[in-house]
């Protein structure tokens, strides 16, 4: 039997547990899983954990932690208890995500053309013009199918039965999809019997869907099948494994800047037979680094002149440069209005209420209630530079308040959400048990000839007891995510 770390009614205080209801009974989607969990014993689970660890390490599924030279390649902890979503819950999420990405692409088109939304007085002009993520170079350009963000990761948290909130839109180069796919592979190898007892929606079609999405946005002058390539900054990038994985799964070349060249007004890669034209480049390099002639002149990662070629319609960059203006944390607060403006519909998925420190009244409110809030940098990512009020010391609060006062435009604040919990294996050795841990969810969306959402996504879990930070750089792990079919 496994030790149950206070996995009882009310144990997770005010957080919603996705497995157990208020009476400690398993909720419907978790019934079979809960029975299976109750039948497991510690030594079998320890052995499976070992197997999983060996499997991931052998495959080289590692990520680099920036600023940590000693452990330059680490495994992301993998928790073997799947997170389960009922079919109806997923249908709701899927509709909400589709609505959101349609609106955000429409917003990007508008911002880089007529800027109707500014004229309508919904988004203030200075939020755009003064924003580092806004690329004036993109003004007036029509990308294929008018799509800017083709590959999107929408971060969602849950606080109650129907209480799903979008925490963040990732429209630049979202990562994590390879973990989603490999987690499923691992689970199918470790626990085939669990899949026999559940109708789990498959996800392995993702690479195929990615390929179709990329092919559907080939430049107009491409006749015949477009050649695709994945552009990586190289083996030292924290997500290199994913870049290689996706290129491999799609059967396309994984290139670095030095493999590419521009000749005769087209993009080519250097092959053993000489040059070969590239039509669609899935670039996993930030905007600033894709083209040293147009952007950061010190970049060694990109290709000089690539952006001009893109604007000339000779190559498609995925995602388009300049998408960051739509997932900026300061713009995030406007997304509900953005959805209404472009779709005429009410938002299906709610935002987390957000205070903008750039607005003096809201800033004063933030400073007065710092101990209850989560404060984030507008351009920060990976959980760096973030304050969790309830977990911070007096000293930390004072320091952070000073930083906000010095540069208010750089911060937003949100109430500390009671993120839902899911069961996770905790402890080790004879202390191995099951305990509730906070989770979030990143479904992956593809936008091309149509919108494709992979059922489920990547569940990130804060493995430290009570912690709300799920980022892998901060001790978070991942889980397989199951969408049950009706």
């Amino acid at each position: 039997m496994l030790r149950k770390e206070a996995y009882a009614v009310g144990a997770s205080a005010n957080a919603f547990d996705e497995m157990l209801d208020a009476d400690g009974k398993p909720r419907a989607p978790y019934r079979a899983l809960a029975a299976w969990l109750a039948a497991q014993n510690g030594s079998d689970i320890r052995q499976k954990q070992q197997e999983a660890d060996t499997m991931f390490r052998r495959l080289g599924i590692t990520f680099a932690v920036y600023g940590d030279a000693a452990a330059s390649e680490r495994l992301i902890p993998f928790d073997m208890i799947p997170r389960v979503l009922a079919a109806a819950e997923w249908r709701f999420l899927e509709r909400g995500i589709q609505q959101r990405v349609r609106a955000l692409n429409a917003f990007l088109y508008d911002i880089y053309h007529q800027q109707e939304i500014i004229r309508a007085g919904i988004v203030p002009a200075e939020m755009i013009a003064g924003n580092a993520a806004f690329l004036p170079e993109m003004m007036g350009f029509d990308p294929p199918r008018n799509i800017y963000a083709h590959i999107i990761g929408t971060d969602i948290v849950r606080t109650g039965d129907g209480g799903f909130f979008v925490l963040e839109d990732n429209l630049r180069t979202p990562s994590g999809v390879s973990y989603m796919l490999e987690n499923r592979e691992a689970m199918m190898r470790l626990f085939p019997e669990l899949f026999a007892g559940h109708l789990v929606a498959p996800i392995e079609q993702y690479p195929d869907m990615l390929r179709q999405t990329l092919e559907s946005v080939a430049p107009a002058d491409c006749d015949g099948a477009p050649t695709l390539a994945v552009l990586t900054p190289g083996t030292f990038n924290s997500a290199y494994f994913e870049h290689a994985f996706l290129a491999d799964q799609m059967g396309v070349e994984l290139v670095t800047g030095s493999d590419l060249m521009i000749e005769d007004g087209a993009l080519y890669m250097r092959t053993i037979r000489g040059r070969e034209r590239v039509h669609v480049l899935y670039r996993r390099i930030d905007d600033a680094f894709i083209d040293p002639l147009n952007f950061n002149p010190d970049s060694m990662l990109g290709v000089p002149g690539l952006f001009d070629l893109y604007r000339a319609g000779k190559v498609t960059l995925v995602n388009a440069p300049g998408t960051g203006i739509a997932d900026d944390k300061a713009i995030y607060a406007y997304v509900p209005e953005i959805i209404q403006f472009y779709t005429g519909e009410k938002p299906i998925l709610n935002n987390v209420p957000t205070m903008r420190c750039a607005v003096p009244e809201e800033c004063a409110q933030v400073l007065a209630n710092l101990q209850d809030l989560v404060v984030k940098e507008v351009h920060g990512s990976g959980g760096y530079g973030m304050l969790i009020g309830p977990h911070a010391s007096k000293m930390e609060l004072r320091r952070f308040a000073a930083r906000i006062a010095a540069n208010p435009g750089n911060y937003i604040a949100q109430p500390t959400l009671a993120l839902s919990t899911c069961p996770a294996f905790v402890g080790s050795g004879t202390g191995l048990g099951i305990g509730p841990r906070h989770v979030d969810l990143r479904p992956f969306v593809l936008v091309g000839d149509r919108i494709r959402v992979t059922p489920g996504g990547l569940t990130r879990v804060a493995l430290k007891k009570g912690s709300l930070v799920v980022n892998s750089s901060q001790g978070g792990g991942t889980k397989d995510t199951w969408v049950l079919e009706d």
Partner: protein
Amino acid sequence: MLGRTAASLFWMSRYMERAENVARLTEVGYRSALTPDSGGGHRGDWQSVLQAAGCLRGFEARGFPLTADAARDYLLFDRENSSSVMSCIEIARNNARSVRTAVTREMWEALNSTWNEFAALAPGAVGPARLPEILDWIRQRTALFRGATIGTLLRDEGYHFSQIGAYLERADNTARILKMRYSVLLPSSSGEINDRSAYQWETILRSVSAHRSYRHFYQESYRPHHIAEFLVLRQEMPRSLRHCCDLICESLRHLVALTEGGESCVTFADQRFGGLCNMKVEHIMTSGLGAFLDGFINDTGELATAIGEEFHFL
């Protein structure tokens, strides 16, 4: 296939082959250190081992004393020595990692687990007692990698670049070992054969793991010109120059068929190495084994450069 991918596959296999050769040379040094010298001490042949591995200059530049411990650590673990087993495995793995899509899961796992396990070894923990075990392990792991390559890699361009890398390295290695010690194969003025020369001949054969196959093949005691023939001209001997060149030429011809390019490399290889199949060892010995080896090492270097240019290695 990207030129960079071809280059990485070439270097990946080349460095794994080198790791194996350096381990074998280290074993020769270790054995000779256990063999009593006629003078009463031990032979301590580390200088020539370092030289054959192409590491002597770097070793001396670092100011290390010529002791068994220092030589062993430099050959196996020193990350600043680009030919140490550690460096070779790491370079091979980095190359594989940069072209993960071009190697099979089996190859990657063989390389990656070798790297993981070897990097976890503390040099200090590997005293003389564990050395034979470690050297065996390195040979097993390189064999596993080679087996995974032969057993699982698609026979497309990538396979042939990997083969060419491995066999160029092996040919170069055999040529360098011979060059290091060929003087002991030359007829001495006195014509006398003592146990010292017999020992040195055996050392040459051991450096290429051929001391037993020699006896099977020739059914006789060591004879210098047969040793030279075995290592240079016999296609039956898997580390001979002839055998390596045959396989390099074969892979080059496959590449020409697959890519419709690279003719000039085949022509070059045929010109320089085609003669090996008709050559007589007496001819090489008379016209000078040393000069022949110098020419050969130079030719393999030129061929590697020509392949890199022809197939856009960058």
